């Protein structure tokens, strides 16, 4: 279980005298085991900062962040991150990229190869093991990123706008693939997004954040069943939540646009 209590984070200027910017203020969040939580909010609301703190990539100022009762002080083997810009090593082929996390965590070469091949198959990239990232489409690159994260068999998957850089069709296909993967092997997922469809389609709960400083505006239950298919997009519950999210987001951004 991920537990965030009264979390605050400010970014200081590099020079003396420049004012600190409060990115997150008083965040409370609990993510139960095997729960899929999506986080949505206007640009600059600190949702990526929140994810990076849970991932242990950046320190926080106040509050508590813990996983199964242990305070987060850095990255840990129970967590894996999927990055918005894929973060693939351009000099390494698909196989090496997928095996990267395993190798860093000290698995033997044989184990790495076997596990990486298994994951490549799982995300539907068999035959592309020896290709370089630049030879793949954006969607395929992010499938490599997903396979790399899943390869270390994390209990928690932290996804930072993973499909944000992809075109609409690719994004929808990957959403469906992620849903199927998650329904087969449940993990705890925190999924940052700026797409309302995506937030409702994927999440058990949607966390709505306010603009800077980021606070939790509301936790919204998504009363849609599992397994979920595209059909739910036509359901009144789906449309209602989406409408509700949009009303809120529009109100928040009224001054900016």
């Amino acid at each position, binding site marked *: 279980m991920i537990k965030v209590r009264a979390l605050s984070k400010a970014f200081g200027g590099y020079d003396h005298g420049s004012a600190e910017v409060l990115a997150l203020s008083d965040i409370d969040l609990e993510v139960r085991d095997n729960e899929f939580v999506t986080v949505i909010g206007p640009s600059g609301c600190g949702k990526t900062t929140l994810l990076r703190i849970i*991932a*242990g*990539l950046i320190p926080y100022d106040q509050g508590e962040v813990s996983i199964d009762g242990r305070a987060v002080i*850095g*990255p*840990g*083997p129970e*967590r*894996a*991150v999927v*990055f918005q*810009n894929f*973060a693939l*090593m*351009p*000099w*390494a082929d698909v196989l090496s990229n997928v095996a*990267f*996390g395993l*190798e*860093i*965590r000290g698995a033997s070469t044989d184990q790495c190869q076997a596990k990486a091949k298994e994951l490549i198959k799982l995300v539907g990239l068999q035959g592309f093991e020896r290709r*370089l990232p*630049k030879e793949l489409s954006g969607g395929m690159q992010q499938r490599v990123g997903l396979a790399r994260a899943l390869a*270390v068999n994390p209990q928690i998957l932290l996804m930072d706008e993973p499909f944000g850089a992809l075109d609409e069709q690719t994004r929808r296909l990957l959403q469906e693939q992620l849903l199927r993967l998650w329904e087969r092997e449940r993990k705890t997922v925190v999924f940052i997004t700026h797409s309302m469809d995506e937030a409702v389609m994927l999440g058990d709960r949607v966390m709505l954040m306010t603009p800077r400083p980021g606070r939790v505006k509301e936790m919204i239950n998504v009363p849609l069943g599992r397994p979920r298919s595209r059909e739910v997009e036509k359901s009144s519950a789906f449309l209602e939540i989406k409408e509700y999210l949009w009303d809120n987001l529009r109100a928040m951004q009224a001054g900016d646009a």
Partner: protein
Amino acid sequence: MKTNLARDWGPRCVVFAAIVGLWEFFLSHSGNFLLPRFSEIVSGAYRLVFFEPRFWQALFISNQALLIGYAMSVAVGIPLGLIAGRLRWMDRILNPYVGVLLALPVAPLIPIVIIALGLGLAARVFIVVLFAVVFITVNTRAGVRGVEASLIEMAYSFGASEAQIWRRIVIPGAMPAIFAGMRIGLGRAITGMVMVELLLVATGLGRLLLEFSGRMQSDLVFATILVVIIEALSLLAAMQTIERRVARWAPDISVG
């Protein structure tokens, strides 16, 4: 591969033929008896390589300074660049000195180096290093800086240690720029080698050049330069072959 060869070497040969043709044409009309025709340079190079025993000796002496100096430049320049690229505080310390080395006209320093280190190999090696090292450092540093921060973060998120980040992310990511620096550095090292031999330490190829120009044997002067160019091109080609294997993923960024 074959199509590549044809694609590259066809136009190259055309350009070469055009330059040689223009050269011959202007000389046959200018009446300048000191400038050799291209054909004379080629025959001069032939005589030099096959019938001038001092040439091989000179080539050996010059290359001693070049290879030792270049190897030292690589051995010092790359680590310095890596450190300056990754560690901000080291970069802040090194930055002014790198600037000095970049702006420094090395040629006027040659007499001082000779006074300090004597007329031997050490002085020549030192000059070669002065010419080459900073370009290797600057390119390596730029390469390290160019490694995407998100890749380092990604490695860190899997729990990578600093050593693992160096070995798996920083060095491979900087590799294309390191090669670019090594290529530019090689060109500079050759310049330094010839410069020091011409200006003060009359030895090696520089001494031959001085002798030939003293006797107005301009064909042999050009022939010697031609040999230096051919050597430089061969070394660069060898380096490019390695580069293509190590850094085939990167767009070609090297200059020089």
